[in-house]
């Protein structure tokens, strides 16, 4: 990586001797300091905001034939990025890049276990007092090194290849169940290698493309062991696996400005879990391995046609078949013989849509889409979706574009069992339907306007409504509402003042019915007791966001930029049950309640055409309240928590100075 950096830094110096006629770019060097009133991993979740130096550089050199460029962002920080790119105009281009992404999840967690980050976690027995637990951070570093090449001369063939290696290291929150429940850490030591190749042929009428990809995932840890005193438990980890795909597509221009596109692809995903590594396992005994093997066949056909200047249509068909060739495993546990279920499905999707230009200012769009899915899943055997939509777009007024869209979906699902065959706890399946497969009617509408009353003023406003009615479900989701309003404005005012603003409001509400029961009490018609009762909940969220920025040139060389945004969500969950079941259920008034505010001011002073300096101040505050964190305790009975997510609030003041040089 340092070599790449050195090459990069040498580029501007070497440019004239390399014969490049034009060299351009920008270098930014900054210094910042943070003052935390409250600190959280959420502030720098995906970025390294450390005190000290930061910066970026971008250089692009070219002449009539060649180009060479390089970029650096945040060198030596945890979110550093480098790329080196170059090529021959009209013939070839390539790029090498290195990217680091830090994903900070939660700081200052505590663990009664030693070995955090390794595949063996050891907790003394008895579990020590919280004061003796070890602090650690949940975070994952992602480092990606990659390259890609495209060869595209002006002959009919082109060729692309890319390859990258992604390395992930760190720990993530992970719940483990032993002689107690422990929130500990999943060691992340993953490496994924990916290679993709695409070769194409094109003529004026025909394009044919072949593509292939290979991805290999390696996990350094095969399983996770938890020792609590003398009790040892073992947990499976994401297994090594690989996947490849082979595919091709053909596009052919036809009469009537039609285009036919055909695509076919085959992919296979393979993994092997070695049961022999599970030392504490007694089952299965016959086979040491699980051979996972899933194959997909996909196909698509699309025909677009321009029937006249007014009418164009699109006819399409997509197919996917999942063939699960994995091994059936039989285990004996809790006195029962259990066999893994291998999910297979095939999906057919077909549709037609059309655009009709009624006149110069009105355009109508309409269509129909059918999706049929057949699964080897007894509670969601088949699903049929019928979708209808229509849209009208009007530009009758020069400075306004209006669009109105309506959509209706009817979903009908079927199970692979008869309700009368269900018994015991399983009887609930005659009444309860999972939401994503449940039969429903969905209605959507959206109205939007774009205004440009003046050349330097643009505004937009849109309103959308969605309603799902799960009328066939006795238990499960009953109804969903969603309202969305968004608006924004972009204005260039006199004296080169620029103003941008946006605001949005979302409201979601869901009604849900369910049954709480002890074994033998699944039938909802049974008399209500304190352990067997039907209940309902209504959860709703109000989300509001607004923000904007203002640029004001105060002097010939000085520009001030002010920005601010604010977002807030208020969640609420109401419960209800029959009085015969007991006392009324309590409303959860803090359900992912959250607000975040950001504000900043900076002044940019241009010393000359090359040099500028920016002095800025930023403020950011975030707060999350959820009922599950109320009166948080690290240990309660045999439940031992780490405090993952507990550092959810932050308040930060930041000052920074950036010097920029453009050339």
């Amino acid at each position, binding site marked *: 990586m340092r070599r790449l950096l050195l090459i990069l830094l040498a580029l501007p110096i070497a440019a004239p001797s390399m014969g490049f006629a034009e060299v351009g770019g920008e270098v930014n060097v900054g210094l910042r300091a943070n003052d935390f009133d409250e600190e959280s991993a959420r502030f720098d979740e995906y970025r390294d905001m450390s005190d000290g130096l930061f910066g970026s550089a971008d250089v692009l050199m070219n002449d009539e034939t060649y180009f060479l460029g390089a970029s650096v962002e945040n060198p030596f920080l945890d979110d550093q990025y480098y790329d080196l790119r170059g090529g021959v105009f009209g013939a070839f281009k390539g790029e090498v890049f290195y990217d680091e992404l830090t994903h900070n999840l939660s700081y200052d967690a505590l663990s009664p276990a030693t070995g955090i980050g390794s595949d063996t976690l050891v907790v003394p027995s008895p579990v020590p007092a919280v004061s003796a637990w070890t602090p650690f951070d949940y975070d994952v570093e992602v480092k990606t090194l990659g390259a890609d090449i495209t060869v595209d001369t002006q*002959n009919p063939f082109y060729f692309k290849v890319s390859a990258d290696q992604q390395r992930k290291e760190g720990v993530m929150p992970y719940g483990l169940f032993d002689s107690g429940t422990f929130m500990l850490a999943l060691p992340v030591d993953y490496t994924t290698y990916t290679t993709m190749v695409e070769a194409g042929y094109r003529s004026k009428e025909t394009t044919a493309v072949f593509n292939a990809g290979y991805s290999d995932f390696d996990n350094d840890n095969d399983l996770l062991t938890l020792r609590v005193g003398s009790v040892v438990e073992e947990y*499976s980890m994401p297994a090594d696996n690989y996947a490849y795909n082979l595919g091709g597509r053909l596009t052919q221009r036809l009469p009537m400005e039609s285009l036919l596109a055909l695509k076919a692809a085959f992919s296979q995903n393979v993994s092997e879990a070695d049961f022999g590594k599970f030392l504490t396992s007694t089952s299965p005994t016959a086979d040491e391995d699980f051979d996972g093997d899933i194959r997909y066949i996909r196909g698509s056909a699309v025909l677009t046609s321009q029937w006249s200047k007014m009418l164009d249509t699109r006819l399409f068909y997509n197919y996917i078949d999942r063939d699960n060739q994995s091994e059936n495993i039989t285990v004996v546990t809790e006195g029962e013989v259990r066999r893994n279920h291998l999910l297979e499905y095939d999906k057919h999707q077909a549709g037609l849509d059309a655009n009709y230009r009624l006149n110069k200012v009105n355009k109508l769009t309409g269509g129909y889409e059918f999706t049929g899915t057949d*699964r080897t899943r007894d509670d969601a055997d088949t699903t049929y979706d019928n979708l209808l939509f229509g849209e009208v777009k009007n530009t009758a007024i020069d400075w306004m574009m209006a669009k109105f869209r309506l959509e209706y979906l009817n979903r009908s699902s079927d199970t692979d069992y008869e309700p009368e065959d269900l018994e015991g706890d399983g009887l609930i399946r005659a009444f309860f339907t999972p939401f994503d497969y449940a039969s429903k009617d969905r209605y959507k509408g959206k109205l939007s306007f774009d205004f*440009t009353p003046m050349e330097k003023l643009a505004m937009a406003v849109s309103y959308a409504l969605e309603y799902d009615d799960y009328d066939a479900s006795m238990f499960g989701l009953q109804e969903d509402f969603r309202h969305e309003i968004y608006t924004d404005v972009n204005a260039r005012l006199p004296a080169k003042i620029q103003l941008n603003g946006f605001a949005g409001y979302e409201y979601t509400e869901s009604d849900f019915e369910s049954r709480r029961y002890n074994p033998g009490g699944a039938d909802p018609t049974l008399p209500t007791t304190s352990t067997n009762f039907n209940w309902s909940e209504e959860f709703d969220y109000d989300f509001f966001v607004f923000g904007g920025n203002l640029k004001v040139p105060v002097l010939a060389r000085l520009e001030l930029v002010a920005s601010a945004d604010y977002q807030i969500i208020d969640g609420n969950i109401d419960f209800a049950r029959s009085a015969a079941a007991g006392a009324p259920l309590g409303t959860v008034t803090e359900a992912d309640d959250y607000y975040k505010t950001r504000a900043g001011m900076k002044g940019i002073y241009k010393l000359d055409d090359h040099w500028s300096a920016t002095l800025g101040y930023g403020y950011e505050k975030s707060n999350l309240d959820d009922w599950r964190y109320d*009166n948080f305790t690290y240990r309660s009975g045999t439940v031992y928590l780490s405090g993952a997510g507990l550092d959810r609030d932050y308040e930060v003041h930041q000052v920074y100075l950036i010097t920029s040089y453009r050339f």
Partner: protein
Amino acid sequence: MKNKYIVLFIFPLSLLVLFLLPAKSEYTRGADEKGFIGAETCKECHETQYESYAKSVHSRKAIKGPAAQDACETCHGPGAAHVEKGGGRGVDIFTFDKGVDPEARSARCLTCHERTPGMDLWDLGVHKRNDVSCDSCHDLHVGGRQKPREPEVCFDCHKDIKIDANKRSHHPILEGKIRCSSCHAPHGSLSKYMVKADDSRELCFKCHADKRGPYVWEHAPVEEDCQSCHEVHGSSHGRLLTERIPQLCQNCHDWSRHPGTPYDSTASFTSRFECLRCHSAIHGSNSPQGGGLRFVR
């Protein structure tokens, strides 16, 4: 293992030699094309635009682009009539103004770019069908890179995605670590939402290969659609989930005892901490024990 990668590179490299065959220029101006005045004349009135063009890749003679053809008039059409009438916005000249038919604007670009890899799918894409033209996203009169600024350009139209990307839990789009074009093919695709994979699930596995399996114990929604549980751009709930836990899990699961229990504000502290506290292998499990069936091992 290393041999596997050597083989993977030999094949592409051998194809590379094949594709480096000499290029053949195919462009010839039509006999009926008249009224061309040359770039120097355009420059007299449009110096700023000319200077930006001169710095752009379009001005390179090595490509079969404007510089190898009629410079400004390659895209704007012959300018003689425009000059004769004393100029003026849109006067006898093709402009890329908002009022001009988007299809006509794109057609100018596609004259050369219809053979750019991937552009054969332009007619199939959502953008073309919604009157988005090339210049809606690409600003040609700039030097250096002419790729649109992401995500800003995309957010101009996709305001709902802009809101989502700003939410508490989000992919690092605003932080610049994921670009819209990392996942979407803006010039058209045969896949839903124009994703750069056979389907959205395959797309997720490009970065999350640890979730790919195959597993001994499969969680059926995971095997069919990641979006059953996750938002892709951002969410007000943790882990990009579509709903708070336990509500999300209970939308599918009811059984005796705790799956069907209402977790209201009177529930004990130990009951509050999410289904995932125990069912942590929620994307699938390879445990040989029965616990794998319930994703707790």
